[in-house]
């Protein structure tokens, strides 16, 4: 049986441009969601977590100058810059060779170059075809001279978690030795107006699992995690494996969860079984926790049903919002950081229990040995995902 190790990671959100920077900011209780004044992203003010544009351009310009000085800044979209920086950061700290024929890039996104959908924007240096997700993926793959065309997964808000799951499965199947799982979404008026039309955005920074929660906050971001069958190439000393995982569908409604939590529970149970762990073996849960009424309630039910109601849990979305295609990757990167540091981080925005099934939400940072961690995700289209990370 092949073990799939997780290794170096990167996270880019309003809180910074590396996983380590996120941990620092989270430990300092920094919240990256702030009220964005009405303007180019929505007619009225709305809380968002946005990647600092000037810093992004500076870092990308510097990276390009060092690696490909013949290329121009304006031939890259914002999404492509984020993904290139995120992947490059991970390559720097791991030994995985991205041009190796045994390495695959898996990209997760909802909309890729969301800003090209407008079509009326004049971007002469950017081929309009890059609005297609496969073309966006191909562009990113060829930028790094990857041997294999990247796989692109677009499965709503579980896309990031799926990229990890699919990567670990393809390594287990012997098809590849290493996977760079990366993904993310930028924020434009497209997503903001869409989620507003669903009335799913909170007027204040989101409060996952809290009794006063009233919607999610959107966040912009990108995350990358290395997966490899060879621990020595992972770039981290701890041996942490993808021990189990599962994805299910509610078969109930296209835009709302099955409120019994049954399918979500099945995903969690199956992931635990594959990892040969009992619920009480789990030390920590990195929950999906968006801050919406029904989804948080459903997740709490599913976790409680799985016997996990006492396990310390947080949602990172209170810090930098729901990062869509990046969520599963960024939040897994931070969950893995928790395992490496043996630290648990406060669930930002949470004050008072607000789910019918009690769950153990972290109200403070804590020191705790974390050997087994569960990551959950769910999204539109009734999809649910669960992954178990295990220190060996």
């Amino acid at each position, binding site marked *: 049986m092949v073990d799939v190790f997780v290794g170096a990671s990167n996270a880019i959100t309003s809180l910074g441009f590396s996983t380590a920077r996120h941990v620092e900011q989270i430990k300092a209780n920094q919240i990256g969601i702030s009220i964005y004044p009405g303007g180019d992203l929505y007619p009225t003010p709305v809380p968002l977590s946005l990647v600092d544009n000037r810093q992004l351009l500076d870092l990308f310009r510097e990276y390009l100058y060092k690696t490909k000085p013949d290329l121009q800044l304006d031939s890259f979209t914002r999404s492509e810059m984020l993904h290139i920086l995120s992947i490059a950061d991970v390559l720097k700290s791991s030994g995985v060779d991205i041009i190796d024929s045994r390495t695959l890039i898996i990209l997760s996104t909802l909309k890729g170059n969301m800003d090209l959908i407008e079509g009326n924007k004049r971007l002469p240096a950017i081929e309009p075809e890059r609005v297609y997700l496969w073309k966006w993926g191909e562009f990113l793959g060829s930028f790094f001279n990857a041997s294999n065309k990247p796989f692109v997964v677009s499965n709503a808000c579980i896309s990031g978690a799926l990229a990890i799951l699919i990567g670990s499965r393809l390594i287990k*199947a012997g098809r590849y030795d290493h996977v760079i799982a990366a993904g993310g979404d930028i924020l434009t008026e497209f997503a903001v107006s869409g989620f507003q039309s669903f009335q799913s955005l909170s007027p204040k920074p989101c409060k996952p699992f809290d009794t006063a929660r009233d919607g999610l906050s959107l966040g912009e971001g990108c995350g990358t995690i290395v997966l490899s069958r060879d621990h020595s190439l992972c770039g981290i000393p701890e041996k942490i494996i993808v021990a189990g995982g599962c994805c299910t*569908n509610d*078969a109930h409604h296209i835009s709302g969860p099955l409120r019994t939590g049954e399918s979500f529970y099945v995903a969690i149970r199956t992931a635990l079984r594959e990892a040969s762990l009992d619920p009480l073996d789990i030390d920590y849960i990195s929950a999906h926790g968006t801050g919406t009424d029904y989804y948080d309630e459903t997740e709490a039910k599913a976790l409680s049903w799985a016997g996990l109601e006492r396990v310390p849990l947080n949602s990172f979305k209170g810090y930098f919002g729901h990062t869509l295609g990046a969520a599963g990757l960024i939040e897994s990167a931070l969950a893995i950081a928790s395992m490496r540091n043996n630290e648990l981080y406060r669930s930002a925005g949470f004050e008072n229990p607000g789910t019918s099934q009690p769950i153990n939400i972290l109200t403070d940072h804590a020191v705790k040995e974390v050997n087994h961690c569960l990551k959950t995700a769910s999204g539109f*289209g009734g999809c649910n995902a669960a992954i178990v990370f295990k220190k060996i």
Partner: protein
Amino acid sequence: MMSTKAELICGALRDFNILPSKMDLLITRYMKLQDHRVSLNGNVEYTSEAESVDALFRSVYGYYNIDYPKFFKMDNLCKLAFLSAEILLQDTDFLQKYPGEQIGIILENASSSLEYDRKHQESIRDRNQYFPSPSVFVYTIPNIMVAEIAIRHKVKGENTVFISEQFDPELIYHYVSELFRNQRVSCCLSGWIECYGDHYQSFLFIIEQEDKIKRFKGLQEYVILNTLNMEELYKGKSI
């Protein structure tokens, strides 16, 4: 593992009658909807003269006597996915043999949900006529087509949409094989559902495991699941 054409056992090649080896994955039923024609297991079932994609999908819906009012709310990508699954599964007990949790849906397409992406974008183009609508926005993710099939047929297992330039049988082969090996699925709906503007194409099939099929039905019609066979079925002119 390369395969020979002789391993493709279906339609005209059925006479080769090579038995699959233990644990082989088989395509036990497949359909295509393209060029205004519907075919099931290689036999053309319906040809339409409809002048638009909308009219075509309505006519297919009518021809198969489908009664599912939610169909008319769907975007064209979901309509195509829904119709494809209906054509494949109508009056059969293919899925009933398996618990919903053990059935997967793994699909691919090229354009994601771009048609409704543009429609949503159009609704917010002008701040004086600003009408973003949840009934449009919900279709701006491609896995809603998975959800529509899942809801209709009570499919509750693994589900993923991959975006690739063309039908990628290798991706399906490796990923679905691993889902079976890992016992994550006992049956999987898989294929290519592409729809953007006037261009549409669907190729959907059922994948089952050889030992399971023997228990439930004879081995008259099957195609061994491999990259070459999927490519053959996808490209096959007559089918």
